[in-house]
């Protein structure tokens, strides 16, 4: 096939764009993308470059065969800067103790894996020298490393780092603290009584730090489960991780309440730092179920996907989960601009599911190319219907799919909350719909700066910042997370969290003295003013983009250009200010 006419010079074609709505539906299936990750993850990350295609036969027709990299040309990794990156010592320390979570049978195999992982990490940081390594980043990369064929590992890791994980790859942790503040606000909206307990235990939900920093890769216990989480995250905006973290916390409400009664302070942190026991809903073997279509695939890769035309995704005008009740509650309690949950492009769609056939239920355990033991699902059909997923934010603490055959772990601890991955992910979507990033109470515009991935990420690859530009953004932490604005007094211990919060909002906010740059308060304040002003514009742009399907590209492009302009002006202005203060 020849698609050279559709591929512009930068190797990115709008033709290659995934159909985000379809993929979001697929990611909710038990098993997620299953065997199609080789194709889907690169597309979702914006890796379409002909360079990889030429070398590795990309787009790979690997939906039926396991990737084999043995006879392929060497990695298309750009010749690295030979001088070591500052973080290489730490990278070495962490890769030395990697592959703990997903056990490897053979010590030699593990040593080989470690060495390859180390090489991959070092290549990334030698090419993207402005990025900083953080402990836990190696967990993220491990998932890519164990999932994708070798030639895709570097470009996918690079894109993931630059456009989704970037906020955490600067010199400090502060951007992640910003994400934790948003999480705290989501929890306060979704379950004020629970949030009130949690707020009493810690000023921020630090127990979720590794969730947000490592995209759950440090915490999810098995490779198939973390792959499914990545399926979910990669076809949603980066901010989706916050909603997933919130869904996880909410699923443990009864455990938190029990600990609260027992008065064990640190145990709440301890409990919530580990995940509930996750499991996949039963998956059926069904060769006709590879419902990946409209991902902008070339003719070649479409033929590689069996029954591509069978995706049955329909726009459901009434979401399966009934959100009206909660919206009403919120409207009653929360003054201010209203959001419209129907605006979110990915929440009013639902993948229609195949009927349940429990004769073919199976989960396979096999060893993959890396010698890593995985419990791994073949292409299978979804069993449960999403419409059965419970809707209330008070999440079911026990699996509601009692009528289904659940692949039972013999080691399941009886007291730990069990949550099906499908219901967890659907609950995260539901939280996103109820309390979208544009929700006024989340104050995302007052927390994250215009150069946070929360604001720069786009479904359209050409709307993303250029890779080099993205890399440079980590050098301006003040544009990634805005200076911390002290919260009003937390809600009192009664359960009327909403009312308390609303009172709190009317109080005068006061600027906390910046801790790192105590001597340049004036400069920070100036920058804050500029950032907030420009950011409100940027947020308007973002809000419109979120609310828009991807059909209206022209308008979208204009808005994006405007957004880039705002960012550019802001960057220039902040540089001038920094120069002015002799920093």
């Amino acid at each position, binding site marked *: 096939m020849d698609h050279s006419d559709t591929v512009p010079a930068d190797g990115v074609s709008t033709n290659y764009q995934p159909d985000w709505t379809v993929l979001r539906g697929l990611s909710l299936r038990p098993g997620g993308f299953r065997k199609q990750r080789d194709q889907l993850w690169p597309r979702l990350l914006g890796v379409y470059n002909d360079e990889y295609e030429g070398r590795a036969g990309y787009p790979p027709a690997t939906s039926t065969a396991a990737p084999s990299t043995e006879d392929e040309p060497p990695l298309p990794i750009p010749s690295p800067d030979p001088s070591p990156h500052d973080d290489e010592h730490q990278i070495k320390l962490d890769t030395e103790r990697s592959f703990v979570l997903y056990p490897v049978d053979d*010590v030699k195999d593990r040593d080989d894996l470690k060495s390859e992982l180390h090489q991959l990490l070092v290549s990334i940081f030698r090419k993207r020298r402005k990025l900083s390594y953080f402990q836990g980043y190696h967990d993220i990369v491990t998932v890519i490393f164990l999932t994708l064929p070798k030639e895709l590992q570097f470009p996918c890791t690079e894109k993931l780092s630059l456009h989704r994980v970037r906020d955490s790859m600067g010199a400090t942790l502060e951007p992640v603290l910003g994400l934790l503040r948003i999480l705290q606000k989501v929890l306060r909206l979704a379950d004020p009584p629970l949030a009130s307990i949690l707020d009493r235990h810690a000023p921020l939900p630090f127990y979720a730090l*590794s969730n947000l920093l490592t995209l759950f890769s*440090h915490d999810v216990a098995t490779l198939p489960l973390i792959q499914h989480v990545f399926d979910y995250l990669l076809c949603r905006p980066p901010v989706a991780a916050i909603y997933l973290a919130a869904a996880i916390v909410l699923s443990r409400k009864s455990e938190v309440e029990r600990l609260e009664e027992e008065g064990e302070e640190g145990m709440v942190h301890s409990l919530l730092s580990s995940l509930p026991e996750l499991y996949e809903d039963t998956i059926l073997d069904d060769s006709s179920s590879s419902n990946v279509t409209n991902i902008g695939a070339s003719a070649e890769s479409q033929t590689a996907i069996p029954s591509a035309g069978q995706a049955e995704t329909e726009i459901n005008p009434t979401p399966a989960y009934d959100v009206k009740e909660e919206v009403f509650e919120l409207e009653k309690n929360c003054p201010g601009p209203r959001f419209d949950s129907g605006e979110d492009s990915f929440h009013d769609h639902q993948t229609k599911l195949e009927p349940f056939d429990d004769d073919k239920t199976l989960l396979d355990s096999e060893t993959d190319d890396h010698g890593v033991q995985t419990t791994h699902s073949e292409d299978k059909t979804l069993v449960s219907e999403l419409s059965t997923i419970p809707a209330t934010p008070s999440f079911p603490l026990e699996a509601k799919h009692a009528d289904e055959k659940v692949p039972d772990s013999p080691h399941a601890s009886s007291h730990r909350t069990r949550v099906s991955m499908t219901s967890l992910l659907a609950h995260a979507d539901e939280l996103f719909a109820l309390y979208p990033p544009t929700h006024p109470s989340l104050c995302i515009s007052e927390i994250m700066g215009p150069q946070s991935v929360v604001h720069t990420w786009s479904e359209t690859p050409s709307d993303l910042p250029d890779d080099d530009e993205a890399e440079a953004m980590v050098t301006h932490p003040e544009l990634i997370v805005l200076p911390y604005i002290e919260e009003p007094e937390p809600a009192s211990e009664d359960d009327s969290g909403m009312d308390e919060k609303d009172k709190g909002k009317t109080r005068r906010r006061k600027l906390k003295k910046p801790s790192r740059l105590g001597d340049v308060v004036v400069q920070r304040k100036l920058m804050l003013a500029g950032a907030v002003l420009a950011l409100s514009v940027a947020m308007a742009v973002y809000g419109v983009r979120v609310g828009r399907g991807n059909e209206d590209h022209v308008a979208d492009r204009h808005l994006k250009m405007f957004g880039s302009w705002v960012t550019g002006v802001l960057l220039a202005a902040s540089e001038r200010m920094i120069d002015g203060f002799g920093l």
Partner: protein
Amino acid sequence: MSKQYQFKLVLLGESAVGKSSLVLRFVKDQFDDYRESTIGAAFLTQTVTLEDQTSVKFEIWDTAGQERYKSLAPMYYRNANCAVVVYDITQSASLEKARTWIRELQRQADPNIVIALCGNKTDLAARRQVTQEEAKKYAEEEGLMWGETSAKTGEGVNDIFTAIAKKLPLIAPPSARGATRGAAGAPARTGVDLNKQPVAQNEPCNC
């Protein structure tokens, strides 16, 4: 009736010196050759019963070692009764890092905090870079407790925590709740590892 105390303990030290392994040995008497890095902080508890039947319950905050997590540390040492600052006897740079932590604790933490300097990995004594004399001298100068341990073999681990447990009730007034509510009536709670789900299928393959 025997006395019951409850104290908050924080572990600090450079990355990969064995902080989490030390706690795992103390709390669960286990050791993993490969222990994943700590992100943020982990919380565990362990109760030590002294010869006079006094029981001391430690609420242990095990922190991440990488420099970038440093800004979180004050939250964990702020109200701590004691700190165990760990270095690796095979890495002299890790003792320098320990000194930095100790200076910070002396400046920022509760003035009554009990600080123990702990040289870990004595099972690797053949590669020793930090002599006992050097570390001990420094500890004496700064008025710190000092000990060497091997989380791998268990050598010295209980000794150092027991020494802290003996010293604390004499120095630091127990927190109000620690004095009134101990482990009475309830079996000593074993710690919970924050960073690992107890998925048993992970275990057999670590050979």
